[in-house]
């Protein structure tokens, strides 16, 4: 008993602390939920307001918060202080290291095999295409936000420019997808440079606001320039992509007839899947190469310290503009793909929501990390579908998952940075040292 006494003594203030914390949480919950849950209002049959109290529900909610707070605090004490290194057996550690190395190739092989495994399940194929589109958008935005450290809230503008470039060029001039794809990229890059010029002097919050406004301007122009874009009605009848001129249609000149196999609409879905996979991998390959070139190093240096860049003779203006243009170009490619997949586009597809989603993917993945962005896109888009069974609680669960992830990994799934060049061995740089950029 004597041995127990000091332990109890050290625990005593702990219990008081836990109870106090739980009480405060419960009080906050009471204030918050008294109107949200405690009182229910509804419009009566003649339009008058009827209301009644739900004190039972309110009490249950407050009690849940009280109990939850105690459980969380106990868990925290059991877990020990945050940041302590838990002793992991070396075998497990080396296993984890191997798993970390394998994850990218395994993911890539699996992606290649998705159309083979899920050939019969159109829903999964469509979801795969959607995820890959966001992977590509995430990788594109990663150049601007992750590498150059320029916070861009209007990335969807370039997606829209790419989509409308292809849609309008194809419907008005009958140009094929393969001609329009580079044009869409070039046009989007051009708009990226146009956006870049006025915002060169801006930093941080100011840059974010101007890019946000730019995204809205593009959308509003598309809505209002009815004679060119069809306004809110959008553009219909956008041609489907062809395999180098051979359409994937049921007719005699279609791919199925030429190969002598029976036509199936799934062929086109599989083709679209591999098309977006190729485009995304192109984005990835170019980004990885650019990082190892002087321009990529200059982007990262710009994120780290702009003044030092200028002292080293780096033209920060052109460096920022190339970052904007490169990111925008990939957004334009993705947009052209989006237009050809949908066959119909309207301004509704290019709202701020999309920009926010792509930015969330980049931040969640770990700014600058290619694999992290791919995993985040999979989690954000695929995970969102996974929770579909939860109906109205989907957003709640999803939001909670994101909050937990940000607590657990504040710098994203993969926060560390891999060096672009090394003398002896490349060692990852801790996310504590890597700057996020200031605009």
């Amino acid at each position, binding site marked *: 008993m004597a041995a127990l006494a000091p332990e109890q003594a050290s625990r005593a203030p702990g219990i008081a602390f836990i109870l106090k914390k739980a009480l405060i949480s419960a009080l906050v919950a009471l204030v918050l939920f008294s109107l949200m849950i405690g009182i229910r209002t509804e419009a009566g049959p003649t339009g008058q307001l009827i209301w009644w109290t739900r004190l039972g529900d309110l009490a249950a909610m407050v009690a849940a918060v009280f109990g939850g707070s105690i459980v969380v605090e106990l868990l925290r004490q059991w877990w020990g202080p945050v940041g302590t290194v838990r002793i992991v057996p070396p075998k497990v550690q080396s296993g984890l290291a191997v798993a970390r190395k394998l994850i990218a190739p395994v993911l890539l092989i699996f992606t290649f095999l998705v159309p083979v495994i899920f050939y019969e399940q159109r829903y999964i194929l469509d979801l795969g295409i959607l995820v890959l589109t966001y992977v590509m958008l995430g990788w594109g935005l990663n150049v601007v936000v992750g590498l150059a450290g320029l916070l861009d809230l209007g990335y969807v503008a370039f997606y829209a420019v790419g989509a409308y470039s292809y849609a309008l060029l194809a419907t008005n001039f009958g140009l094929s997808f393969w001609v329009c794809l580079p044009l869409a990229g070039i046009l989007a890059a051009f708009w990226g440079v146009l956006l870049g010029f006025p915002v060169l002097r801006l930093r941080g919050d100011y840059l974010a606001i101007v890019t946000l406004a730019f995204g809205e301007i593009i959308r509003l122009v598309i809505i209002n320039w009815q004679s060119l874009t069809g306004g809110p009605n959008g553009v219909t009848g956008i041609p489907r992509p062809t395999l180098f001129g051979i359409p994937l249609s049921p007719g005699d000149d279609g791919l199925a007839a030429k190969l002598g196999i029976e036509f199936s609409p799934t062929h086109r879905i599989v083709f679209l899947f591999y098309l977006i996979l190729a485009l995304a991998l192109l984005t990835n390959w170019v980004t990885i190469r650019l990082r190892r070139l002087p321009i990529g190093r200059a982007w990262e240096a710009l994120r780290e310290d702009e003044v030092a860049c200028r002292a080293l*003779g780096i033209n920060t203006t052109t460096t920022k503009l190339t970052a904007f243009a490169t990111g925008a170009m990939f957004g334009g490619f993705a947009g052209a793909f989006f237009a050809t997949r949908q066959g119909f586009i309207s301004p509704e597809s290019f709202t701020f929501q999309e920009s926010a989603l792509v930015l969330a993917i980049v931040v969640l993945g770990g700014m600058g990390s290619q694999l992290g962005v791919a995993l985040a896109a999979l989690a954000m888009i695929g995970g969102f579908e996974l929770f579909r069974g939860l109906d109205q609680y989907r957003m709640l669960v999803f939001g909670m998952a994101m909050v937990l992830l940000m607590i657990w990994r504040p710098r994203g799934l993969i926060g560390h940075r891999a060096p672009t060049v090394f003398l002896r061995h490349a060692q990852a740089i801790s996310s504590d040292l890597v700057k996020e950029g200031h605009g």
Partner: protein
Amino acid sequence: MSERDILSVEGLSMRFGGIVAVNDLSFTAQRRKITALIGPNGAGKTTVFNCITGFYKPTGGSMRLTHENGQAIQLERLNDFRISKLAKVARTFQNIRLFPGMTALENLMVAQHNALMRASGFTFLGLIGAPGYRAAEKHAIDLARLWLDRIGLLERADDAAGNLPYGDQRRLEIARAMCTEPALLCLDEPAAGLNARESAALSELLLSIRDDHGTSILLIEHDMSVVMEISDHVVVLDYGVKIADGSPQAIRDNPKVIAAYLGADEEEAIAVMESGS
């Protein structure tokens, strides 16, 4: 102006609103020599540096940089990155400004940006992996390796710059400036925060930069032992005005300097000065 002067500053003035930070300053820095710019806190030394390196646009005066081939450049006509790129003036900062999330080697590679940019055909040749670019990159790595070796950081080349000890960061910043292959190296308090052993190593490094590389150095420093040991010429500023100009010995014995630099009491000042050197 004689050919042996690399930098000649004439009538330089810098005003911020009503405050005159630098007033009608004229001095010269000789080629392949170390010129020190000293003065009490707030004398305007860093302002002079910021004018020379293009971070400030001077209110008046001219700054002429003459290269060895006789090409003269008016620095006040160039702005920020062009001074480093065209006039070959490199600088370090009073508060270290490395790229902390990049490795020591990467820091030195970023410094060779302009040369590598040309070699990579403004990215397009580099993207397809042209052999010319690969050779240029190898050359750049060799130069970086040489400087890492010179500052004794070869072992830590692959460590993040932000992880290095303070003294190593100071030397890395000098190495990074040298990787731009400058004609004039401007160092803003390179010995600040260093211990005696590190200061001595720094003096040695600066002397070897002057002698082995033929780079002229302009130096702001508070550590008098460093200034007196390595400077060939000293310019003293007080309240934005030049109060003395000469060899270290002449400056050391100049009562006007001592009075301005270390306070009004000359006798006390002399005592401190001698113990400091």
